[in-house]
Structures are given as C-alpha cells and as structure tokens.
C-alpha cells in the first residue's frame, strides 16, 4: 500500500498557516450554488483545468498527526495572483477519526466537489487529477482574500456533514513544481491503488449491494442487483456508482440492499437479495442467484449489453453482444433472443449481462465460468480477452471458427474444449457436466420429442445442466416448465425431427378425456 504521510514542504517555498475556525466568510454557503457556472468573463482566476496541473487528495492519518482546522497555503495566494490567469492547484486533506480508514478516503474525497460547490462564486469540476476550479470576481470583490478561507469553509462542511471526521487539516498548494511533484509521487500511486482495489473488491467484502430500477418502466419485474462482482446489465452501473447514487438519493432508483444471510456461496444467493427481488418484482420472483446461469438466474431487463444462451447440443454457453448483427450458432440473432428474454424475466438458459461482468472473478461461477463458454463474436471476445483464463481462451469459438452448431461442435472437439469431456468448475473443483455422450447419438442428430410418450420418458425439466447432453430432448432452453403428463404406455408416437429450428412460445398438452384437469 502506498504510504500515507504528510506532504513534505520544501523550506524555500512560501507558505502561510492558519489554525482554527473562521467566524465569517465573505461568501454565502448553500447547496443552491451547486451547478453554478462561472463564465470566463466573470472569472477572477482559474485553478487546475486544462492549462495547469491540479489534483485533490484525501489521506487518512492517525489522529495525533492531524492538526484540526489547520490550513497551510503553499505558493502564491489569491492576492498574488493575476486576474484572468490559470494557476496550478492541489487540495490535500488529512483526516482522522476512530471510524476513518483508508477505504473511506475516496468517499470523503468525492464530497470535496459537493461542498466546494456550496460556496458562492466558486466552481469546482471533475475529480482526482482533472480538477478545474474557477473563482468568481464577485466573491473577490466581496472580500475573499485567501484560499485559506475556501479551505476553512470546506473543512467546516466536511465536519458538519460527515461527523465521523473528528479532525481535518488542509494543505493547498499553488506552487507549480510542488504540485507536480506531489501529484506524481504521492497522489498517482494512491489513485492507482484505488483502481486496483476495484478489481480486488468482492461480494463478500461488503455489507450492502445496490439496486437499480431505472429500467422498470420497460421491464416492470426487473430487479437489477449491483454487487462488486456483478455490474448492472446495461454495463453502466458499478457497485461504486450504486453506492454514490444511493447516498445522494436513498429512495431513488439505486437503493441499498442489505445482503442478509449467505444462502449459496457459489451461486451468489443472499436472503437480503431474495427479499428485495420478491418485493421489487411484485412477488414474481422469490430467489435470485447472482452468479448462476441456470438456477434462479438474475432477471434480464432489456438494456443488457450481451446475452448468454445455452446450447444443449454442445452443452455450452454462447454470448452475443448487441452490436453483432448475424445469428449466433443457435440460429438466433441478438435481437430475437433479447426480445424473448427482456422485460424483466428470469429465464433459465438465457442471461443478459453487462460487458464488464466478463471481468468478474465470479463470472457465472456456479456453472463453470469461462470453462463453460463455447462461443462469442470475435469483437466481443477481443474486448474481454484478457479476462479469459489462458487455458480456455483459444478453445472458445468465434464466428470465424463456427457459424452453426455443427461447425461449433467440430471446433470444440478439435480444440478439446472442457465441455467435450465434462466441465470441472474452478470455484470448488466439482465436475458439473458429464461431457458429450457417444458419437453415434450425436451424429444421428435426432431430437426426440414425445407426445403421449411412454411413461419411461422422463418429465422434462427446464434446464438441468447435469443432464444436459447433446441429445437433450428439447431444442431451446427457454421452454417454461414443460411437464408431460405421464400417460398410459399405449399408442406412443415417436417424432424424429431433423435439422429443424423450433420456436415454441407455449405448449399445452391435455388428456382428451379429462379436459379440465389437463396439465399446462
């Protein structure tokens, strides 16, 4: 971890120090100033922005090192600045408190934007090393003399609004060389460390997930659950975005979901998520597993960037993204599959995801993760290639390798893809598929469909990955709860369908003599 310690200020740079709370500020402080844009003509000076370096940084330090409400201005202060010019600008805050930890630094740091925009005549934009500030002439006329006053007002807001901050100290730097030096040597390593943490943060490390119901106008039963290991289906919302939005508007479209008890570690099932799903789907769904493809999968809104589809013929999963216009090997283009799955349905065999879910360490881990993936368009595969384990990367086909199920089967066999001999899921080493059965059954390409079949024919379950072998008795996995009535063993019919693509919305099979009690 990058070191957290106070910035060393060289002896030869001018500095001004001031300790204690300010009585009066020559500017108004209110949330109504948020969004105030200071135009070039009204600007006294610009700090940071496109012309000068700038950054902001919050560091958590031990309480004894932080001198509360102290501000140090290093370099020229406002009165020495020339009107209309741009200057380098660094805002560094040291914070301390019994609950203040390194993890909270970025959360506190983001609030600098909010609080500084409460200040009349002060425009703060962007974050980290992109900050851009404009100070209005009006506020300087009203008596603003020093950046120290800005720092004091900001620190006051930090302490009022975030009471867990017990002590806060600010160092504002306008000296060009020092801004550059601290940016490169101190701030950048900390920002990089934070970004690395995003990859390292997992579902088990947090207490809350976040919901997103922005899509519910299109998909009323959709329940997007955003966790560290599972971004939203549209790809836009990470766990961090959910957290940021929930804090601003706790009753808004992104609300906190307390995780509750862990029910299924591998599938990613939590009591809190289940309760939430039930509530938000209007009772339609009672269980949701975040990292499962087949069992209680996440609902799919319609906004998803990529759709996953199960191909029983190869017992593998393909993925196709919105921008890929041609049919996938299952014969269906993205739009058709999206049409069937979208609208907030939970459908075993199809799953909408965001592209960033491919980066997740828990990517459909219950069903073998990458080891179960057999096909994706080249464009998509290249985009996520570095997240695919080396072992299977070349075994996943693209449209250049296979456009049909037959071609896909050939490719997978040649590549010795795990689905051929059976997938061992990496998460717990369990063998979850049997692999393909004997060649003969495959080459026959016989799909058996039984209408009034002998009782020996098992009732077909929606999708059971364990029994998903090439001769699975249904062509498309989205058939809902197809239950064949176990009828008398006489007069069975054997249907042999070859090279057919079947789309069935609903099958109703009734016994003619018992019309009212027929299964559906």
């Amino acid at each position, binding site marked *: 971890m990058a070191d957290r310690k106070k910035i060393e200020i060289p002896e030869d740079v001018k500095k001004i120090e001031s300790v204690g709370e300010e009585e009066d500020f020559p500017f108004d402080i209110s949330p109504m100033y948020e*969004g105030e844009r200071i135009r070039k003509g009204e600007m006294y000076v610009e700090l940071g922005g496109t012309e000068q370096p700038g950054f902001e940084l919050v560091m958590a330090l031990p309480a004894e090192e932080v001198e509360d409400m102290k501000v140090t201005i290093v370099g020229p202060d406002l009165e020495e600045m020339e009107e209309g010019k741009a200057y380098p600008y660094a805002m560094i805050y040291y914070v301390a408190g019994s609950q203040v930890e390194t993890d909270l630094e970025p959360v506190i740091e*983001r609030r600098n934007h909010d609080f500084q925009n409460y200040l009349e005549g002060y425009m703060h934009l962007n*974050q980290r090393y992109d900050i851009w500030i404009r100070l209005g002439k009006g506020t300087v006329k009203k008596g603003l003399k020093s950046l120290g006053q800005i720092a004091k007002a900001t620190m006051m807001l930090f302490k009022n609004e975030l009471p867990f901050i017990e002590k806060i100290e600010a160092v504002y730097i306008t000296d060009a060389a020092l801004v550059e030096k601290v940016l490169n040597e101190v701030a950048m390593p900390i920002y990089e460390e934070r970004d690395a943490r*995003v990859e390292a943060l997992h579902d088990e490390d947090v207490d809350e997930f976040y919901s997103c119901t922005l899509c519910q106008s299109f998909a009323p039963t959709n329940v997007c659950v955003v966790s560290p290991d599972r971004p939203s289906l*549209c790809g836009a919302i990470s766990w961090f975005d959910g957290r*940021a939005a929930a804090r601003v508007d706790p009753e808004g479209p992104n609300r906190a979901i307390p995780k509750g008890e862990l029910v299924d570690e591998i599938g990613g099932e939590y009591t809190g998520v289940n309760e939430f799903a039930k509530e938000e789907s209007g009772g339609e769904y009672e269980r949701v597993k975040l990292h499962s493809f087949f069992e209680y999968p996440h609902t799919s809104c319609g906004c998803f960037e990529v759709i996953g589809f199960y191909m029983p013929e190869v017992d593998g999963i393909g993925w196709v993204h919105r921008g890929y216009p041609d049919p996938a090997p299952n014969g269906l283009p993205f739009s058709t599959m999206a049409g069937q799955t979208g609208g907030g349905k939970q459908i075993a065999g199809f799953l909408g995801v965001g592209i960033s879910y491919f980066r997740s360490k828990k990517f459909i881990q219950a069903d073998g993760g990458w080891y179960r993936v057999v096909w994706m368009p080249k464009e998509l595969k290249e985009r996520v290639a570095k997240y695919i384990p080396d072992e299977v990367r070349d075994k996943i086909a693209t449209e250049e390798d296979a456009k049909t199920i037959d071609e896909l089967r050939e490719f997978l066999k040649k590549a010795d893809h795990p689905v051929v001999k059976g997938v061992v899921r990496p998460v717990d080493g369990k063998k979850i598929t049997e692999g393909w059965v004997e060649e003969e059954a495959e080459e026959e390409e016989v799909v058996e469909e039984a209408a009034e079949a002998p009782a020996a024919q098992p009732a077909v379950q929606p999708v059971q990955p364990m029994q998903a072998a090439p001769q699975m008795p249904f062509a498309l996995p989205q058939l809902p709860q197809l239950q064949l009535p176990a009828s008398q063993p006489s007069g069975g019919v054997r249907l042999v369908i070859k090279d057919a693509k079947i789309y069935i919305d609903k099958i109703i099979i009734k016994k003619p003599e018992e019309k009212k009690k027929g299964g559906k």
Partner: protein
Amino acid sequence: MAVIAVTGKGGTGKTVISALLIHFLSREKSLLAVDADPDSNLPDALGVKPRKTLGEIREVFQVSRDDMGTMNKEQWLEGKVYGEAITETDSYDLLVMGRPEGEGCYCFANSLLRGVLRRLMRHYDVIVIDTEAGLEHFSRGTISGADYIIVVTDMSKKGLATARRIKDLSQELKLNFRKIFLVGNRIMDGMGEEEIRKFADEGGFELLDLLPYSEEIARLDLRGDPITKLDENSEYAVKVKKIAYRLVGDSNG
C-alpha cells in the same frame, strides 16, 4: 429562471425566432441557449461555432465507463458538459444536444445528465430552447419542463396541425408550462392572418404576434449569414424584440 421552449413544424422559422429571442434577451439577462433539434442549425443562426454536443459526450461516456474504476460518473459527465459542451459567447452560453442516442441502454447516462442539467439550468435567468416538434428531450426528461412554450406556425394547414399536436403532447408530458403561445410567421395576407387568429382562439393558444415575411431574412439565409445580423429596426426584429420583452416581463410578474 424562465424556460422558454420554441417549437413548431420544421421549416416554419422557429430557429430564426429562437435566435433573435436569444440575441435580444441575452443583452439584459444571463441566458442559456439550448439547441434541442438535431435538424436545426441554431448555432449557425446565431453565428456561433459550437463545441461538442451532449450526444457526443454521452457516446464517449458509453465507451469509457467500464474503465472509470471508482471515479464518480456523474461528476465525470458534469465536467465534460461544463468543460467541453457549453460554448461561451460574450453574452450567453450555448448547449447543443446533438443527435439522439444509438443502440444500447442510455438510462443511466440520461439519468445522470438530467441531474447535471437541472443543476446547471437553475443558475440562468432565461433558458431558450429551440426544440423539434416531437419534444424528445422533454419526453426523456433530460430537460424537465418549460414555463413558456412558443409554437411557431406558418400559414400552412400542416403547420397548424403540428401546433395542435404539440399542445396535446405538452399536456401529456406534464411540462407544467404556464402559458402556451402561438406565433404566426411569414404571414403575407389578411386571409392567413384571420385563419391563424381563429385557430389560436379555438385551440386555446395565446397569440403572441404575427410576423411578416422578411426578404432580409431570406437573404441572410441564402448567404448562410447569422440571423442576428438582421437590421434591428426592421419590422420583423422590432416585433420579436417586443415578444422578448413581453416574456421577460411575464416571468418577472
């Protein structure tokens, strides 16, 4: 803050009127001009070279969002809007909404932009929005409402039919407007005048004024010169100026 939406069937001259309103109102008020018609050319009419459109920024957001890590996306968008989309002129700011979104889901981007624009807009005295008749940005909520809707029509039946549709749509969208006005443009004879007066009466529009056909505007258009070069003492300019003051007076009272 007063939000004035200028709309009407394409080709009726709403962009000319928008540009002149912006030109006159910005002399006394802090003003944001919004071009919300992908087919229009408000920046040309104003003689302003626009920067990036909101649509372009939204596209950049869509492709770069996966790599933003813990960066705050709303603040990212706000920075882009303030820093790269808003064009500052000497007397007003201009924001071009740009083309509608492409494929994929824009729910989140639009939801963030809605917040950014709401906070931005409240700091101006006047916002003039040149918008297409479908009021797309209003229906998507990227722009939340309008105080005054000015529907521009020429003497054509189609212009009037569009005006009626716009009124229905504005009510449906709950734009919470205080008034919906009608402006007749390029009115060349008494018959047209009478027709439009009658239409306004029956349709529940307040008729702001009837503007004449202006050869000078036609010439400016032909040369591709900004409409703001129109002689301020011309009948057309005087009338639009009167409309401008009337709206500001209305919003003060």
